[in-house]
């Protein structure tokens, strides 16, 4: 690695001032499992930073809180281990616990943060489809204060986010899922751990009896950003939760995707996975929804 200046602020405001002062030549560092690799390989999507603003001493970034009224608040600096192991996440946001629980190895999960996974903006990010189906809101802090953005608008392209160079992702807020909701996440990888998703799918279904009152479907690694599969959602809305409905929605999800062929898989295989995985996950989410109410 080439050298850089290293700053370790203790508050969000201090971190934002440092980023502003640097005028685009600084980069915030969270767990380092993506950024440090990119620095070593000189493979950053931005000029090599003159300053690293490490967030590891900013304790206000690390909390996870849950309440029955406000839902879940995840500090951007919460590690994958913290997120995947948190009782409220496991119980109320099961698809997110699943996504956070498969990022790399235990070593990776102990370092990597939820905010880092989102800000690295890989189309394959394992926490992105779950955050999309739970309609997470990104709380962003900059020199002029706070703003919020739906997570779907946060992702702009591979490695590209809505953040300006002097802004930080401070937290993610996930509203309480309506009662009668079941959700699930799955990714396809040749290896169970320590691999990158060929395709990732998350779904959340809210049932009233057998009727689908609300459906959320999100896909990873099949487009320039993780995305909501809106055609699939429309095919589910108001329908009866059964195999036929799920098959139609799975076919619609394929239309929502625009995968490429790369070293991990062909576009054709990715489309096949979107269909198979979406149908299976919808059935699983429906079972969970029935179990929850």
């Amino acid at each position, binding site marked *: 690695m080439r050298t850089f200046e290293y700053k370790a602020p203790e508050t969000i405001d201090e971190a934002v001032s440092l980023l502003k002062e640097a005028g685009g030549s600084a980069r915030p560092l969270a767990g380092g499992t993506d950024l440090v690799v990119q620095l070593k390989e000189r493979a950053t999507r931005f000029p090599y930073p003159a300053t*690293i603003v490490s967030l*590891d001493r900013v304790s206000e970034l690390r909390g996870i809180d849950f309440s029955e009224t406000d839902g879940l608040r995840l500090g951007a600096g919460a590690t994958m281990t913290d997120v995947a192991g948190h009782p409220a996440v496991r119980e109320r946001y099961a698809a997110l616990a699943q996504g956070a629980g498969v990022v790399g190895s*235990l*070593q990776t999960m102990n370092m990597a943060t939820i905010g880092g996974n989102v800000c690295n903006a890989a189309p394959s990010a394992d926490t992105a489809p779950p955050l999309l189906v739970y309609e997470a809101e990104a709380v962003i802090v900059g020199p002029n204060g706070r703003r919020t953005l739906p997570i779907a608008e946060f992702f702009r392209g591979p490695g590209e986010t809505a953040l300006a160079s002097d802004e930080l992702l401070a937290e993610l807020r996930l509203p309480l899922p309506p009662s009668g909701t079941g959700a699930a996440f799955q990714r396809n990888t040749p290896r169970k751990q320590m691999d990158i998703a060929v395709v990732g799918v998350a779904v959340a279904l809210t049932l009233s009896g057998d009727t689908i009152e609300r459906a959320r479907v999100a896909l990873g690694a099949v487009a320039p950003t993780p995305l909501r599969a809106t055609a699939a959602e429309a095919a589910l809305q108001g329908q009866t939760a059964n195999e036929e409905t799920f098959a139609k929605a799975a076919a619609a999800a394929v239309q929502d995707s625009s995968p490429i062929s790369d070293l991990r898989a062909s576009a054709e295989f990715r489309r096949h996975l979107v269909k198979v995985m979406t149908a299976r996950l919808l059935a699983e989410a429906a079972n969970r929804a029935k179990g929850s109410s």
Partner: protein
Amino acid sequence: MPKQLITLTINGREREVAIEPHWTLLETVREALDLTGSKEGCGTGDCGACTMSVDGRIVTSCLMLAPQANGRQVTTIEGLQSNGSLDPVQQAFIDTGGLQCGFCIPGMIVAARNLIDDNPNPTIDQIREGLAGNLCRCTGYAKIYEAVELAAERIRGGA
């Protein structure tokens, strides 16, 4: 760039070290503190040969910057033995022959010790999952898993 001082507790001993900010924890431990048990395999967090425990959680030290370790408790393979006796995990790897070239073993043993501390009676699947971040290119893992099972058994028995 001038060096800066950090203080860390390495294997129970507090040390002050002069570092440059772009050094990794692994480089610092191997080159400034002269503890060369931890290895650099890939340098990109994939192989786990550099695994250390930081504040009780295992990390790939090749991806942690030295200043991030300031004030932290770091345990390396050298810190597992006590009073000249090997850790039961180290002894079990010797007794089962759970190694060939040995390069991955320091990281493997630090990860295995962490796994057993969290779960004293791991199933084979839990061992596989716990060691998924540690690659071995020689043995095919069968004897490594055997070593971890034996170590867990001995530790449960009070070793």
